[in-house]
């Protein structure tokens, strides 16, 4: 295989392996913890390297994952004292551990391939040249094997404990009452996140691994209301951005990990703007529709309250309710389109449908019971809560 394909494979598998724990971190509102883990595994890697003198040793992953878990424990211990909040505790712990790692590298590892740049940004370009060779047979890049094994383990754990992860993320109390210990699940997830981070570290570095964990999940969250689909979408976004980012980097002749993250960011921006129901544009559209619908209701109430023709003239309505012409027209159009009013000779009258709608809507606003307005939710944003 060519290095080109090797790099894309490593990036894609890394992205998939990061996206899965990322979904649960996002849903548990623990995105920042991934940032903390990604930094504070550094002393674990360095100490592991001093002991084994081999950057590719599996012991490195174990040491580093262990320091990831220590981070989580420290954050929780500091937070439990009640003296500082969680975000402050995170901000205290990871720079401390990270700086220990940086000092250890500067003091002892100047002559080896373990420098601060590589730690921060990763070095995907060199990954294909560190090959797994058994009995003179070339089995491909070592990095690809490591991250693939981790992806497979993550998938097996996800399939086995999907139900447990779901309930302990959604409802800690019930999870605990039913005997699915939230503590065990929490540390299980943290272990997977730590191990994945360590393996992804080589490819994308300490800063960008956070983007690989959080961005695909955050984007998928805006597109679906189903946990299963959220997981699938996250993996697809991660893999797509990894491959897209590689070609983007070639085109720009720039850092691969930087380009992958940029593509992830752009993808998120697009989804943030254009997601069908949770996107910014959809939300703004919904709000403007709601404004018109409130006006419509005001208008229908006015019609309902006033019988005399004088009060129901189109021109009078504009003066009386004090709306500008554009708004008055759009409200009139909406009402007419829904067959709620008829306009005859510039006199507006409420139809039976309009009357029924007004009464139901009033009833909903007064009692806040929405059983009767279920059918109205499809046509009107106002009643969707």
């Amino acid at each position, binding site marked *: 295989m060519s290095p080109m394909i090797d790099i894309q494979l490593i990036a894609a598998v890394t992205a998939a392996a990061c996206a899965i724990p990322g979904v649960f971190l996002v849903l548990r509102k623990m995105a920042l913890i991934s940032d903390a883990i990604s930094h504070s595994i550094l002393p674990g890697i360095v100490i592991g390297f001093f002991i084994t003198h081999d950057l590719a040793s599996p012991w490195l992953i174990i040491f580093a994952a262990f320091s990831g878990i220590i981070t989580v424990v420290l954050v929780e211990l500091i937070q439990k004292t009640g003296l500082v909040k969680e975000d402050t505790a995170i901000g205290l712990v990871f720079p401390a551990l990270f700086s220990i790692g940086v000092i250890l590298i500067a003091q002892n590892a100047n002559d080896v391939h373990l420098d601060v740049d590589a730690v921060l940004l990763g070095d995907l370009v060199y990954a294909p040249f560190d090959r797994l060779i058994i009995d003179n047979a070339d089995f491909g890049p070592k990095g690809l094997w490591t991250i693939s094994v981790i992806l497979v383990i993550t998938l097996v754990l996800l399939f086995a404990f999907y139900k447990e992860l779901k309930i302990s993320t959604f409802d800690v109390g019930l999870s605990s009452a*039913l005997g699915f210990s939230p503590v065990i699940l929490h540390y299980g997830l943290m272990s997977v996140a730590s191990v994945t981070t360590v393996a992804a570290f080589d490819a994308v570095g300490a800063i960008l691994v956070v983007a690989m964990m959080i961005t695909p999940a955050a984007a998928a969250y805006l597109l679906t209301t189903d946990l299963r689909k959220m997981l699938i979408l996250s993996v697809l976004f991660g893999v797509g951005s990894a491959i897209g980012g590689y070609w983007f980097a070639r085109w720009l002749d720039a850092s691969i990990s930087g380009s992958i993250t940029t593509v992830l960011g752009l993808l998120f921006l697009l989804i943030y703007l254009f997601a069908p129901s949770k996107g910014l544009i959809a939300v703004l559209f919904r709000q403007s529709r709601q404004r018109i619908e409130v006006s419509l209701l005001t208008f229908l109430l006015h019609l309902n309250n006033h019988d005399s023709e004088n009060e129901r003239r189109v021109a009078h309505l504009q003066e009386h309710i004090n709306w500008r012409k554009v708004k008055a027209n759009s409200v009139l159009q909406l009402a007419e389109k829904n067959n709620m009013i008829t306009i005859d000779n510039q006199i507006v009258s409420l139809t039976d449908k309009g009357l029924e709608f007004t009464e139901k809507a009033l009833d909903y606003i007064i009692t*806040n019971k929405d059983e009767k307005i279920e059918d109205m939710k499809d046509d009107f944003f106002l009643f969707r809560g």
Partner: protein
Amino acid sequence: MKTKIAVAVDDLTVAYNYKPVLWDIDLSIPEGVLMAIVGPNGAGKSTLIKSILGIIDPIAGSVAIYGKPYTKQRDKVAYVPQKGSVDWDFPTTALDVVMMGTYGSLGWIKRPGAKEKKLSLEALEKVGMLAFKNRQISQLSGGQQQRIFLARALVQNAAIYFMDEPFQGVDATTEIAIINILKELRKAGKTVIVVHHDLQTVPEYFDWVTFLNVKHIATGPVKDIFNDDNLTKTYGINYKVAVQQ
């Protein structure tokens, strides 16, 4: 005639950061009652339920469900947490939340199947929410969310039901629907224990009551102990005047 004791709490003390929130609680709840736990804010009502269910570790004391520790009796107990304790924006549907009630009987790893789905649909029908089974949970009203939680407890088909403020933020129709289901449960011989806030409705809804304010004040039939004396002891003000206002 002596009825069985469903829940027995013995010398229970719970503390947050070394500050006791429940102090030396002794309590026994007979089988087959519909019981309200009342007390002011911060009285430890939710904490009492959570420590009975092992969600919070007490610093002293013990709990027995039909004479055995809770961990041996999980299948006999259903729990409805406070509605506000979960994230209703979680990507899941009404049916899926109800199915979570079946997880306990499945145990680790095993996934819910057709049987669990059928039970969950029946529970949804019972609380009048079948039409909403595929609705995303954030798209439900407060009352509908509470019904979903009730359906999830019904699916557990337990002997004892613990409910933490099931009437919080629900409309009058839902409140009546919920209390009717709770009364049905009692008729079927189940024990139902409810953290409750509205003192006015206690005599109408419940047959037993526990007064709690960090310490246990009284437990017994509503007709015997729901009086000004106990209300005053619990709330620290003359409740006769307050209720009548």
